């Protein structure tokens, strides 16, 4: 009973940030821009958010809720700003989108490690390669948490979990119900149609990439606040790529992608529980850590063939070409 409880609690706190990052990826790719940069974007978001929280905590004290909220906001802004670079490369400079994505990841990793060390040394006067944030406090919803089994979904919930669900709902609304979403999805299928209809392909795609940055940034700071309790280069362990696998699995649609994220989350937390329950030495957790990745590969083997990527994905849009 307790095991299932823990699996659900840990699984959700891992799956939801993954999901919001996958939504970001869907925005970008449905607009026609391949986005392998999610990994770097979430790292940059976590860095900016982590730095913000670290500074504000010094000012407001450890008990204040302000640093936490500000970290979320700044993580999104930081992710969006960094994503603008990907947009610039792909849209303005017509770079190969796959290469650009990888470049963004590599540069992000280098830049955040460098800045973390430099800021720690030059501003805070200490030799450290991380910003300690502490693990975010959790809340249990009275009443609902008493429901057998399902109550776990309302137990020990991180504050970012409901936030993510709300943002996901808003993201769904914009993508499928508004004229902006209509144009965005059209850009990924036939950008010429959008151009002929008087919309701006470049602007729409740019916004989509920025959104993916903001959502990835949010995911990054959530990971920093839940899994590691700090910002350091530990944040780069492939969450971004898991998110990509999730939306490929979800065929570039929101709900099936959520399902994929939940599978990853529960596979991971289930594995940990297994190691703990069987009393295996901690090095075995390394093996458990491979579960989501192996699962991803298997899912992709079964799904990649039939899934239909957006038609104009990865193509450099050329107005003059017909």
């Amino acid at each position, binding site marked *: 009973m307790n095991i299932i409880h823990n699996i659900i609690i840990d699984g959700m706190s891992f799956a939801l940030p993954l999901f919001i990052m996958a939504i970001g990826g869907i925005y970008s790719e449905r607009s026609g821009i391949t986005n392998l940069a999610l990994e770097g974007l979430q790292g940059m978001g976590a860095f900016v958010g982590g730095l913000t929280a670290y500074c504000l905590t010094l000012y407001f004290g450890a008990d204040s809720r302000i640093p936490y909220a500000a970290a979320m906001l700044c993580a999104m802004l930081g992710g969006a700003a960094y994503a603008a670079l990907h947009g610039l490369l792909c849209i303005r400079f017509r770079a190969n989108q796959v290469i650009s994505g990888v470049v963004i990841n590599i540069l992000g990793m280098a830049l955040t490690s460098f800045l973390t060390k430099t800021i720690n040394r030059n501003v805070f006067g200490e030799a450290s390669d991380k910003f300690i944030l502490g693990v975010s406090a959790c809340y249990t919803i009275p009443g609902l948490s008493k429901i057998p089994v399902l109550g776990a979904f309302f137990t020990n919930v991180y504050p970012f979990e409901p936030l993510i669900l709300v943002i996901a709902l808003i993201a769904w609304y914009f993508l499928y*119900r508004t004229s902006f979403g*209509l144009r965005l999805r059209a850009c990924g299928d*036939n950008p010429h149609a959008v151009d*002929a209809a008087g919309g701006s392909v470049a602007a729409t795609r740019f916004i989509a990439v920025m959104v993916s940055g903001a959502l990835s940034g949010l995911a990054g700071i959530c990971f920093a606040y839940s899994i590691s309790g700090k910002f350091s280069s530990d944040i780069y362990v492939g969450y971004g790529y898991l998110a990509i696998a999730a939306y490929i699995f979800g065929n570039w649609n929101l709900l099936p992608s959520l399902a994929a994220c939940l599978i990853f989350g529960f596979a991971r937390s289930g594995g940990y529980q297994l190691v703990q329950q069987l009393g295996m030495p901690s090095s075995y957790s390394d093996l458990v850590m491979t579960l989501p990745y192996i699962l991803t590969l298997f899912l992709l083997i079964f799904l990649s063939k039939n899934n239909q990527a957006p038609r104009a994905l990865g193509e450099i849009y050329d107005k003059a070409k017909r």
Partner: protein
Amino acid sequence: MAEEYIVEMRHITKRFPGIVANDDVTIQVKKGEIYALLGENGAGKSTLMSMLFGMYEPDEGEILIRGKKESISSPSYATSLSIGMVHQHFKLVSNYTITENIILGIEPKRKALGLFPCVDIRAANARVAELSRRYGLEVDPTAVIRDINVSTKQRIEILKMLYREAEILIFDEPTAVLTPQEIDSLLDILRRLRDGGKTIILITHKLDEIRRVADRCAILRRGRLIDVRDVASTDTKEMANLMVGREVSLSLGKAPAQPGEVVLDVNQLCVRNSDGVEIVRNVSFQIRSGEIFAIAGVSGNGQTEIADAIAGLARISGGSVRICGTDIAQLSVRGRKEIGLSYIPEDRQSVGLILDFRLEDDLALREYYRRPFSRSGVLNREQIASYGEALIQKYDIRCAAGGSTWVRSMSGGNQQKAIVGREIEQDAPLTIFVQPTRGLDIGAIENIHRQILEQRDRGKAVLLISLELDEVMELADTIGVIYRGELGRIAPASELTASDVGEFMMGVHREAVS
């Protein structure tokens, strides 16, 4: 004075690197007329209209709409001046419904829960249905683009303009993809639109269409305006001469065919597409040496798939294909080539050539792997270069730097010459030509047609697949008409008229045959 004209383009000049697309062109269009722009490929018609629609801006000259000088900087500004355009290549989102495509850019809104602005798809559907009734353009607003045919797609493009309340409608080669019967109905629609008060500018190089609907006609040649004529008082021959700039010879001087052995024997061929849908069904035909067999049909009825299946680019899901008596179903692309198949594919830029190769490498594309071009896995560069040079001479391929020219930098006509030369040089008993003259100008077309006839006269079997009915009628010895993946009628060309073939292309006689 200016009030008389709804559109005036004065002294327009537009240059692109290396070419003057429009040179001091002036046209004046009256409200409520059908105004045709006639000219060969490359005459500058589309460029001129692209400037009217705001896709380019002229280097010199001015544009007046309803007597007022305008600088049309974007398609959306053109739309706001109630100018609409149906492009040659439709601009439709394949996974959207017809309504979604039409409203894209000017979506009607409603407030969900009185708060959140949403696209009001239901109101849009109703409006589209109403418009399609009013102008006699039957469509189902909720059908998805992926599943509909070309002529319906064209109607959607027209509805798009009407939905935006366009008054000046530009049609860029609207009949290129239609059957004769569909053309009739389109021309009816054009007349109806004109009678409803719209002004129509029709870009075309087909004289009979101009005869049938246009009131006035401007003739362009090599970027210059040659003349503007009243259609009623000018005869067709004269227009043709003005368009081409010399006397047009309409006959190729084709000798009668002398068919020999059966080279290609296609029996009950079936092909499925990637969704598992059978798009070629039980197709059977034979081609003899010294014979040109043409498959006529509207685009998307399975004709390119037949060619791909024979060449090995698509899987044969049923039936058999024999070349010179050998069943080729199990052979690889290369195996089929070696047995005697040359293939000029429909899409020269993405199938027939590797654009980022040098010309000599592309000319060796089908032969590089064997002697003398390579030996035990190592290329013989000198041989490839000299072979390339020989083909460049023989087929008159114009290129800036000989064999080391980047193919991407060459003109479409010369790219096609390279493919045709490469394939003919293989001296295979069977040559497949798919849309060999698409997008080429008249000189290049004549050249390719002559090559096709020469192939035949050298005793080769030729399979010609073309959407251009004229081309089929002109070259074929035998014609098969394809409709929805089935060959409806196979007959000697001498027994068929263009309108017979057109009717089969529409599937009119389908029941009668089966």
